[in-house]
């Protein structure tokens, strides 16, 4: 699932991005650098649309951010001229006065006539104006845009901008934009300088330009071009690994969430719950129901429906889990294979029930606005908010569960019962209630995982089936009885999976991974974190 990427200036580092985000509000409608010539020009244009051609020259020379805004709007057909004002239609459809940025309630006005002459001047004017803008982000964006599609016509504007530019990052972007142009220069020093720039910051897109140079005549240029190619390749590799790591962590968090409940029911209680996937599904459908309730009754608070979905999902999955334990599982303790079959039967019943209630089709669960979009690190690397949130959520659930088991009386009882049932019973612990409670807790955690899954993928009756094998693999790989095992298993599987995917494809990667687990268990049947014990009879 690819969430829409909120359009943001693309920066190469997160720090710079945050810096930029801070600056954006400051650079809103009218900045400190008000150029009175713009006011005059816009006023004149509002009086007489025919002055457009000459207005362009003024606008192109100005550093006022309003100038580039007008030019961009004109280029994108969002500029109209009403009597008394030049208007810009913003992207959400409102009209504002280009001169002061205030909303305009008067007549919409007409689009100015676009002659060929206007178009020609406009093209170079926009770039020049943006490169000269007072707004740093605007300059950076313009330089980047030229960087992506270098054009010789922009060269003078770039050089002029480079001569006055102070901001180091914009300087780099300008140099990068100039570098491909300099590669064509007959001047060898210029070529070498351009190659050095590209080696430092160049992107994959210039590789095509570098390859001919790397096999050219001049040994010095050849070496420099080689170096640039290697450097660019290395940088890209590093970035890919970073992306793999992030997506691996994210997938690992999903697996961890899905397996955490299982680590409790299987790991602590030894119950093979094949209906575990369906508990995830119940959590996801609970989210769906809460979403619909919010949409119907609390549309204003819709963005916060997820928070309400958490307890609902936890409680509904826990309730189902509790019922399963009371009605079926409790009679099958100590008979793991029978438990496996019975819970599989239960999973069929749960799936069919959900189908009858909600239909066999997938239902739509929307991301709240604060989870859609993402942080764009580079052109290829986007960190979607819902994935980041999943990682944090998995962490939070993990910590909560851990605290619950380690620091509360309930946890103490659960551990007592799992270690020595008879002794725990003798000390007055109601082991049956603890069993039911533990199982309900594991089911509830599965419900929470369902909330996370509803934000990442499709929600349908078969949702759980997709996760049950993976969840068991996580627990088996990690080793039974320890939360650390589930963490290591989940993260390990997630990350390895994402690193295998680019070279093997998703399906083969997954198959390779399953094969690996099967072999791994040969070598370490207890999993990564097993409770080793003395040889036991039987």
């Amino acid at each position, binding site marked *: 699932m690819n969430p829409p990427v909120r359009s943001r200036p693309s920066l190469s580092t997160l720090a710079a991005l945050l810096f930029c985000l801070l600056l954006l509000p400051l650079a809103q409608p009218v900045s400190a650098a008000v150029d009175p010539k713009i006011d005059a020009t816009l006023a004149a244009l509002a009086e007489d649309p025919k002055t457009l051609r000459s207005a362009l020259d003024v606008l192109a020379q100005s550093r006022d951010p309003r100038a580039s805004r007008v030019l961009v709007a004109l280029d994108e057909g969002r500029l109209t001229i009403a009597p008394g004002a030049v208007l810009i239609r913003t992207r959400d459809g409102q009209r504002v006065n280009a001169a002061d940025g205030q909303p305009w309630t008067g007549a919409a006005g007409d689009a100015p006539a676009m002659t060929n002459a206007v178009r020609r001047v406009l093209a170079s004017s926009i770039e020049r104006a943006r490169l000269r803008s007072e707004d740093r982000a605007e300059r950076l964006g313009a330089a980047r845009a030229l960087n992506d599609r270098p054009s010789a016509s922009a060269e003078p504007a770039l050089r002029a901008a480079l001569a006055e530019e102070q901001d180091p990052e914009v300087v780099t972007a300008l140099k990068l934009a100039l570098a491909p142009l300099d590669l064509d220069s007959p001047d060898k020093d210029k070529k070498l300088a351009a190659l050095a720039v590209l080696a430092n910051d160049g992107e994959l897109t210039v590789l095509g330009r570098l390859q001919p140079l790397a096999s050219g005549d001049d040994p010095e240029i050849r070496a420099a071009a080689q170096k640039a190619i290697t450097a660019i390749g290395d940088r890209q590799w590093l970035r890919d690994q970073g992306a793999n790591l992030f997506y691996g962590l994210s997938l690992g968090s999903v697996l961890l969430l899905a397996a955490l409940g299982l680590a409790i029911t299987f790991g602590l209680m030894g119950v093979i719950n094949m209906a575990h996937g369906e508990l995830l599904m119940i959590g996801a459908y609970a989210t769906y129901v809460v979403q619909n309730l919010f949409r119907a009754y609390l549309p204003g608070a819709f963005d916060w429906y997820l928070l309400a979905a958490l307890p609902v999902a936890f409680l509904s999955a826990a309730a189902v889990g509790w019922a399963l334990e009371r009605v079926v599982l409790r009679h099958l303790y100590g008979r793991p294979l029978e438990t496996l079959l019975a819970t599989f039967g239960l999973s069929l019943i749960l799936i069919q029930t959900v189908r009858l209630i909600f239909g066999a089709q997938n239902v739509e669960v929307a991301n709240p606005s604060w989870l859609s979009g993402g942080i764009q690190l580079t052109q290829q690397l986007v960190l979607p908010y819902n994935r980041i949130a999943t990682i944090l959520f998995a962490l939070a659930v993990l910590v909560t569960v851990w605290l619950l088991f380690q620091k509360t009386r309930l946890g103490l009882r659960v551990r007592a019962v799992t270690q020595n049932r008879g002794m725990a019973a003798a000390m007055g612990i109601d082991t049956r209630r603890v069993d039911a409670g533990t199982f309900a807790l594991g089911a509830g955690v599965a419900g929470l995982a369902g909330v996370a899954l509803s934000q990442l993928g499709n929600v349908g009756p078969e949702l759980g089936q997709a996760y049950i094998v993976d969840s068991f693999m996580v627990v088996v790989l990690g080793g039974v009885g320890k939360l650390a095992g589930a963490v290591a298993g989940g993260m390990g599987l997630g990350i390895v999976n994402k690193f295998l995917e680019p070279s093997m494809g998703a399906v083969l990667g997954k198959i390779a991974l399953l094969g690996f687990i099967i072999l791994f268990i040969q070598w370490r049947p207890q999993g990564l974190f097993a409770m*080793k*014990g*003395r*040889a036991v*009879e*039987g």
Partner: protein
Amino acid sequence: MNPVIPPVTPAGDALKGAQMLHDASEAPPKPPAAPREPLPADVRDRPVPDVSHGAILYLESVSVSFDGFKAINDLNLSIDDGELRCIIGPNGAGKTTMMDIITGKTRPDTGTVYFGQNVNLLELRESEIAQLGIGRKFQKPTVFQGHSVFENLELAMQADKRVRRALFARLSDEQRARIAGVLATIGLNGYERQLAGSLSHGQKQWLEIGMLLMQNPRLLLVDEPVAGMTEQETEQTAELLNSLAGKHSVVVVEHDMAFVRSIARKVTVLHEGHVLAEGTMDAIQSNPKVVEVYLGEGA
């Protein structure tokens, strides 16, 4: 009581791992005192422990630890051929772990374990060790619940235990007679068609001992044979074990001191994975170290 040497064939086609430690001819051969009952044909080609130095089992500086806990710590022990040895020790002394090591279930971290002087047990799997003639009785009676008493004994019987042979195996009259003999020995005559799962606790214990006997073992390892038995059953078990000594070497791990006293000639005390004392029951009971371990901790 004299050690017994069976009518052996040379251990030429020994299982893998069987090694000649010493040249047997160097040791002075001991004359067979009592003729053993002749072994069935298919038993004769198993490797035979060389007991010319009198001992059938040697453990030398054996250590094993689990998660840093030293279950067995530099254990040295030797069992004479035909001996009945009792091993006592407080909980966690390493008695069961020692059995696990001898029968191949647990591999020690260091040390050597030999059956006779020639067979290195550390190189063999559980099933191979069992085929050598080392039988083990678990603390909890472990029999095949779904099979009849007769079938339990039949399965345990010393025979070619490869899949293909077992597929086509049929009982000979000689083998039926052997099963009948063991049934009599363990007092389960008349129960042969009953499912083992339906026997009483004590009967299961005896059946398990009977299964060991069917293996024609040279060495019997018996873990707490009278746990959970009635007084009468305990007495009968003591009788049974006493009657086995001489024909077989028997190692009994037991908690019940009265029982140990009733059967023991020589007692070994294990403590923290190590031999604390060894000797007759009287010597052991007056040994101050043993008293301290048993009483000092309890007091």
